[in-house]
């Protein structure tokens, strides 16, 4: 498959008063054309920092790149100037943010917010841009777009605002869409509408999507490939079926067991993950999941394992999957 985006050994840190927070620690993955890649993990695992790094939306300082490359169509984005990035951002790579209530400008009419990008990136005249804006709102199923473009964000409901956000992101027919928790603020019935819409548009435009979410149901619904992040690192990566049916990392397994399913008995206990993720001021030397893992062994405390491949598409970082560790299970054995 043709690769649209390749992230290689990316490391991002934040300088703070107390020291350096290593938010993203040496991650690599790629996104193919018209592929949907889901990044899952708990808050603070670095998934949003990864997304914002690709878009180069991190405030610098305090954030800084410690290393790695982000190749977009083979071109390293980290080497580009801010001006060159501006030509790509919102044009070839777009982003849908989590909160539709705060990511639209409340003092600007909806139409103008969409037109702004078109005039800037595609050098359209205001008239043409307006026509295109109406077309886009139609595409995302906002009723009466001719009337709606002259309204302000507060006149839209949450679901409608998120549609506008998607229209804004799609208007320049990007090759890559980064959706950071696009439906977290929405109700389930509206969420279903928005996800369906994203799938449709993806098909039409041959677009790739990076979907950041903590809802494993949405992952099962939308993604081709899943990346499981924890404490700034990737712990497991694989095709959606491989992650759900042939789970290899204890953290992924725990994550899957901690959400109630509609088909489970109510007497079955819910498996919580005790404890909290490690502090990234002083990232642990060994496996970052060590403190919360029921299978932790001595070696896990001192050494982070390398990736072990389970298939050409599936890999995980856990000593349990190391060929020499198979016989030894159980804490500190």
């Amino acid at each position, binding site marked *: 498959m043709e690769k649209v985006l390749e992230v290689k050994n990316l490391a991002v840190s934040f300088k703070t008063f107390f020291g350096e927070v290593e938010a993203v620690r040496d991650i690599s993955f790629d996104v193919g054309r018209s592929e949907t890649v889901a990044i899952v993990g*708990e*808050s603070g695992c670095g998934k949003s920092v990864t997304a914002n790094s690709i878009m180069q939306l991190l405030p610098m300082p305090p954030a800084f790149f410690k290393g790695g490359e982000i190749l977009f169509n083979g071109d390293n984005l980290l080497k580009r100037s801010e001006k060159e990035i501006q030509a790509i951002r919102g044009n070839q790579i777009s982003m849908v943010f989590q909160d539709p209530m705060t990511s639209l400008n409340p003092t600007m009419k909806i139409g103008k917010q969409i037109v702004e990008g078109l005039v800037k990136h595609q050098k359209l005249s205001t008239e043409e841009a307006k026509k295109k804006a109406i077309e886009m709102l139609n595409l995302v199923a906002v009723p009466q777009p001719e009337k709606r473009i002259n309204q302000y964000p507060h006149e839209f409901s949450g679901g409608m605002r998120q549609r506008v956000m998607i229209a804004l992101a799609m208007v320049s027919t990007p090759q890559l869409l980064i959706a950071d928790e696009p439906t977290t603020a929405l109700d389930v*019935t509206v969420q279903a*509408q928005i996800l369906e819409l994203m799938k449709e548009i993806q098909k039409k435009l041959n677009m790739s999507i990076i979907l950041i979410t903590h809802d494993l*149901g949405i992952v099962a619904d939308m993604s081709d490939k899943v990346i499981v992040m924890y404490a700034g690192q990737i712990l497991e990566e694989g095709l959606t*079926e491989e992650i759900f049916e042939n789970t290899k990392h204890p953290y992924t397994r*725990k994550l899957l067991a901690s*959400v109630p399913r509609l088909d489970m008995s109510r007497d079955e206990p819910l498996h919580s*993950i005790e404890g909290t993720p490690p502090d990234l001021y002083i990232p642990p030397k060994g496996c970052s999941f060590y403190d919360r893992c029921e299978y932790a062994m001595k070696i896990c405390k001192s050494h982070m394992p390398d990736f072990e491949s389970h298939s050409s598409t599936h890999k995980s970082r856990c000593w349990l999957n190391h060929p020499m560790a198979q016989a030894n299970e159980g804490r500190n054995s």
Partner: protein
Amino acid sequence: MAEPLISARNIKKYFDVGEGMLKAVDGISFDIYPGETFGLVGESGCGKSTAGRTIIRLYDPTEGELIFNGKNIYDLSHREMQEVRRNFQMIFQDPYASLNPRMTVEEIVAEPLDIHKAYKNHEERKARVIELLELVGLNEEHAMRFPHEFSGGQRQRIGIARALALNPKFIVCDEPISALDVSIQAQVVNLLKDLQEKLGLTYMFIAHDLSMVRYISDRVGVMYLGHMMELAKSEELYDNPIHPYTRALLSAIPIPNPEIQRSRKRIMLEGDVPSPINPKPGCRFVDRCSYAVDKCRKETPVFEEIKPNHFVACHRAREI
């Protein structure tokens, strides 16, 4: 079945918003039995939180009765209410906003004890606070700290300890886990279940996460625009939903299993939830319902028992 712990009868709560009456809760009735968990689900703006708050009289109702121990608590004076209120507690959604940042954990947990003068001396107060903290999985060391020193899950535990301080019978949990991470959600839900078993608590569990509500609740009510649409035992509601709205709602939950999720047929609802300000007569769901007939626009359907213990408010409940 046992006597209900509380019986809500035709509870209404309207807010005057200038442009008309916002009918947040518009005549809902149900019973909650001792020791059970009653789940209340619905989309944002459906009135579920207002219902929860009106029931424990944090809001004064516009109309209706709430029978507790044979008395209508809405008739009680302020003084009498204070006595009764010991039995009702609430756990709030946002563990960051519901704890006073300038109070220590001990002060927060002891506040209900102070208000109700529930201890004889300082030692007894301290002992009770420690007992409560241990009950929710915290310990004595935490008592002198401030809320900002805790993670979201721990803060929610502090909120739970505070709610348990006066040995309540009934706790309204208003979205207690929606602000938490999935792995932490399970911790808090398991804690709530344990406490229920240990202390014989009765919960009203308000949430929009339908799979979690199914898991924790014995019976579940579905609200839409201030009306109760359907109410049944948890398994029954999820396996055999009758109301078209409940069906659409359930089919919209993404299931964390790619094989099942991708082969499911979803019922897509068109449009958004209409405004609850001056709602039209008739069924509240009529504009988005694919089964709607003329009658649905004219008459508000009665909330009736279609099957044993399965209540539905829909004119066409028996045919669809």
